[in-house]
């Protein structure tokens, strides 16, 4: 149980996908203009992270690895994740339309995002078991959501503040993103203090 908690919290805070690993930066900068779209995107990311981990972990450990085909993971993973999201989208459209309309455009957008692929490959590299991988996926998704929501709050503030002309728009967004990232480094000791 303790290991699970460590994996969950370190994925959310210490090894935050966006702010520490710098994965999934395009949605981080692209849809963080207001909290509503940031939340929509985050739900889609959590959702896709969980289903893609659930399918890629067994695929790697039972099909690719025993046949010495570990080098094919990137190709196979992208292929599998992309088609899986496609299927889930159809499934949701038919059976749970409210969820489909709330995830909306974000679901296909996130399909082959680097955060998703990064998560599945990290699960393999870290040697996580299936349950650990799933917990890691949930943690990574929540961490993504945390970063996105925090950042959207900052960006709405940025829109109202006077920024020097050469820094307006993306530059100031990137600067503030790196400041949050530095702040997140402060969590490094937290996990050790809590669980160490």
């Amino acid at each position, binding site marked *: 149980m303790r290991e699970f908690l460590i994996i969950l919290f370190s994925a959310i805070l210490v090894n935050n996908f966006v702010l520490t690993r710098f994965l999934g930066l395009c949605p981080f900068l692209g849809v963080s203009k207001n909290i509503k779209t940031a939340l929509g995107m985050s739900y889609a990311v959590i959702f896709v992270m969980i289903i893609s981990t659930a399918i890629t972990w067994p*695929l790697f450990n039972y*099909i*690719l690895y025993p*046949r010495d*085909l570990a080098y*094919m993971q990137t*190709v*196979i993973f992208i*292929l*599998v994740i992309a*088609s*899986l999201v*496609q*299927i889930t989208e*159809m*499934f949701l*459209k*038919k*059976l749970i339309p409210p969820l489909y309309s709330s995830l909306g455009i974000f679901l296909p957008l996130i399909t082959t995002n680097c955060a998703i692929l990064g998560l599945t490959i990290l699960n393999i590299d870290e040697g996580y078991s299936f349950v650990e991988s799933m917990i890691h996926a949930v943690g990574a998704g929540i961490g993504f959501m945390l970063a996105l929501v925090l950042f959207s709050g900052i960006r709405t503030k940025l829109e*109202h*503040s006077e920024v020097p002309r050469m820094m307006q728009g993306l530059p100031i967004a990137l600067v503030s993103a790196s400041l949050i990232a530095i702040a997140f480094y402060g969590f490094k000791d937290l996990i050790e203090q809590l669980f160490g």
Partner: protein
Amino acid sequence: MTDLIFTVLFIEAFLLPALIGGGIALGMGVIIMIAARVFFVPVDEKMKNLVNILPGINCGACGYSGCEEYASALNSGETQDAGKCPVGGADTASELAEFLGLEKPDFTPQAAHVFCHGTLYHTSKRFDYSGTVSCEAAHGLFSGPNSCTYGCLGFGDCAQACPYDAIYMADGIAHIDSTRCTACGLCVKTCPKLLIEIIPKHLNAYTVKCKNKWPGAQTRKNCSIGCIGCRMCFKTCRFEAISMDGPLAVIDQEKCTRCGECLDVCPTGTIHNGLMVAPDSENHPRSTGLHLWVDPKIRKKQAEAQNNTFKQDE
């Protein structure tokens, strides 16, 4: 022998990965094909047409979360009322009714109206505000810098929210160009002072352009054009269209006959005649001087003079 090794190597190194990769791809393709069949959702042609008739800005003024929701409610018979879209107006309503074979609804056009005309000239500033240029932010700081804490802050949150460019800021308050306003209600939601209301679009509408609930003396001190609750209009109105909400007169637009008697008795000039129009328009108050406070007696004379000129024209 070399042939055999070569064959084994060939199979191990090339054929197997290709087969596994290809197999997974093929499998996924087949599954998607099956899924597309099983989870096929037919697109309703009628729905498509209904959505096309609606304006498609998803403002939510109809009470549904967007144009598509309203269209599906109409389509499924959940509502029989084709006149719920204030943005599309009478045209959209009759088009929808025609398409669905419903009765044509009575459609009264509406417009948003700012219930404050305490401009820079009528109010003063309690302090210098140099923070974020946003009504909501200023409102959070001691209810904003204006002397009247009920009044328009003039930072233009509503103007930013308006998708039709119907709101313009002048003399420190918001004005709504009623010719462009579609009564979608987006500005109503953004105003932190709750000053904007949707009223029937009578170009000659009479409104008490004030929302303050202070006693008269305090109002007087902070705004020269605010409603002081003297009840003059309340007593004058013959149609019971004016009611007193505490120290504030409110005109019921449904009962109002637009006779204009209240305008003449209002000592502060709070009651306003007419809806706003764009600054470039001929009827704009800036050119007629209507929105600036004028002593009622002088204004009465002006009005009489104007009436006389109209009579002469006739």
